[in-house]
């Protein structure tokens, strides 16, 4: 006998709000992406807990796809951040038009 499902869900919620805070508060695109990863991970935790609760492997299968989506998202996101960095010389999410024009327009 291990913990009840609600404890796992509460842990997941706590992780999710930590990730949300990271995404919302850090003035840094990379850290925002990191926050998103944390949130995805929190969702994965919730799914695994639910999978155990109902004794179904459905939840675990979803985690596989969450992994795939996370990998995709990170790949594209980091590439985009790289473009932004080359263009504006910063990773500040405050995308001022002035900053963009500094690097010239594509």
């Amino acid at each position, binding site marked *: 006998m291990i913990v009840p499902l609600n404890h796992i869900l509460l842990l997941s919620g706590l992780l999710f709000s930590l990730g*949300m805070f990271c*995404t*919302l*508060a850090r*003035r840094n695109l990379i850290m*925002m992406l990191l926050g998103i990863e944390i949130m995805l991970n929190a969702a994965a935790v919730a799914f695994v807990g639910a999978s155990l609760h109902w004794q179904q492997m459905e939840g675990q299968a979803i985690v596989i796809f969450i992994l795939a989506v996370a990998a995709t998202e990170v790949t594209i996101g980091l590439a985009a951040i790289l473009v932004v960095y080359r263009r504006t010389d910063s990773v500040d*999410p*405050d*995308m*001022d*038009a002035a900053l963009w024009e500094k690097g010239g327009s594509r």
Partner: protein
Amino acid sequence: MQPATPLPNSLIVTAAALLLPLLAFGVIMLATRSRHRLSAAISIGAAGLSLLAAVYLLVQHWQMQAPLIFQAVWMVSGQMTIPIGILLDPISLSMFAVVAAISFLVQVYSLGYMAGDPGFGCYYGCMSLFAWAMLTLTVSSSLLQIYIFWELVGLASYLLIGFWFDKFSASEAGKKAFVMTRTGDVAFLLGLVLLWLQLGTLDIPVLTNPATVGAQLSPGMITLTALLIFGGIVGKSAQFPLLTWLPDAMEGPTPVSALLHSATMVAAGVYLFSRLFGFFSLSPTAMAVCLTIGTISMLLASTMAMVARDIKQVWAYSTISQLGFMLMGLGAGSLFAGAFHLITHAGFKALLFLCADVFIHHCGTNDMFEIGRQGGRRLKSAVVCTIIGAGALSGLPPLSGFFSKEMILGHLLDSGHPVAFLAAAVGAFLTTYYSFRLIFIILFPRDSGDAPPPESHDGHHHAGSEWPMTTVLWCLAGVTVVLGFFQTPLHDFLARAGTGFQAATPAHHSWLPVAACLLAAVAILQAWFEYGRKKARQIGWVEQIPFLADLFGQRWYLDRLYRYLLDTLVYRGVSRLFTANDRRVIDGALDGLGRSTIGLGRVIDWVHGGMIQYRLMIMVAAVIGLILFIGWGG
């Protein structure tokens, strides 16, 4: 309608006759435009073959009992099928032959007239276009097809009137002709749409069948559509009140005037009327309107012709008046009289125009007094042909005009229109008067004892190409002389058209020809008294009354009236409305659109740019709200 006689043969011949000019037009415009001789040869060849085909068809079907009709479906749209086809009956066959013949002759004539013109090839291209459109119009089997080619003919007319487009007045005249005929065509189109809505078909055999039309349409609707279609006829045939474009159209090359604006195109209106005679005769009101319009136009145009100095203008007015005459004949209920006059008129009016052209070409002026002074009478063949043509126009026996005119007069008398008959008699008198006024002015010039010899033989840019012109003149003159004697066979032929042809040959009033001749003689005498005799001052009685001279010379102020109406109604009324609409509604809407686009762009810019995390916060807050809503609300 069952096709009777050898179907494929006639169809092929007709189709060939129709397609050849089109082919010529295409080839000339696309390939050979710059090679003048070749273009002319192609065009004339096509016209000649069409003429041969027309003669063949005429001979083949001389004994025809029922009209031939070939139809194919052109397009289908839902419940609606639009057929395209060929309708061969005596009326269309005779008109077909007339058009083919005049086109051919005028094209041959143009060889001499247009020689050396830089637009020679183009000219023949346009002529071919016209020949194609006009020939197809005559044998069209449905009103829609007629309408299409009616407009094509109008286009050819516009192109040819404005042929010397570097001359301002010519391009203006082309525009005027186009716009004025279009005014009538709007009515025509409305009539067609109404008919289509009511009947679901525009086939001529159906329309001219009194039984079906009478059963499906109320009399008021018949009158309305007939009047609307008549509007198109008024525009095309230059009848009152749309008559002023025709004199202006004389800016074009004279052979064009001969072909389009006297013999064939303007006659298309009258032809349409005779085509739909069975339909029109269902509505007494429409017939009465037709008679009235014909009478008014005839009288107006005759009076205008009395004071004109320009030789082409005289014949243009005379064309209007003769077309009015035809409409009178038709309106009085005689299909044959109108159609017969149409055919004879095509012959002698083309002749008169071509003669006028010879004078103009040799003397370099349109003014008949000037022509007389420069010795126009020395152009023997032209003078003789003009006299023949004018004789026919005045209805002198034994020329063709005599027979047809006398028929119309007889019908007017028979059908109980005494006022119209009197008007027609006056019109005939005026016609004779102005025709011979012109002849006498040319024959007996004043103050020209030692006029310089005409530049006839060394003169213009086309020395050495006289023969086509004179040959054509004599051909037409011959036709004019003999055509009258074919009245009976023609009548028998046309009588087989069937519907709407019950009107019997009028009981001959034996006094009528004599009276007509007497009238003509009086008119000639008066013309002689005023212009011909030695001491005549060459000032007509009209010109001695300044009021009348002004009135007639200014075309009864019709143009001024139009200008005034245009200014007040269109420029000050409608166009002001449109301007306001343009400024307030359209410009305003566009400005507003632009402004709101910019505003929206700003909003979107604000949403997209700037701090993405604020947007993210809003998004997350919204999601939380959604969760609350679903969790507690739902």
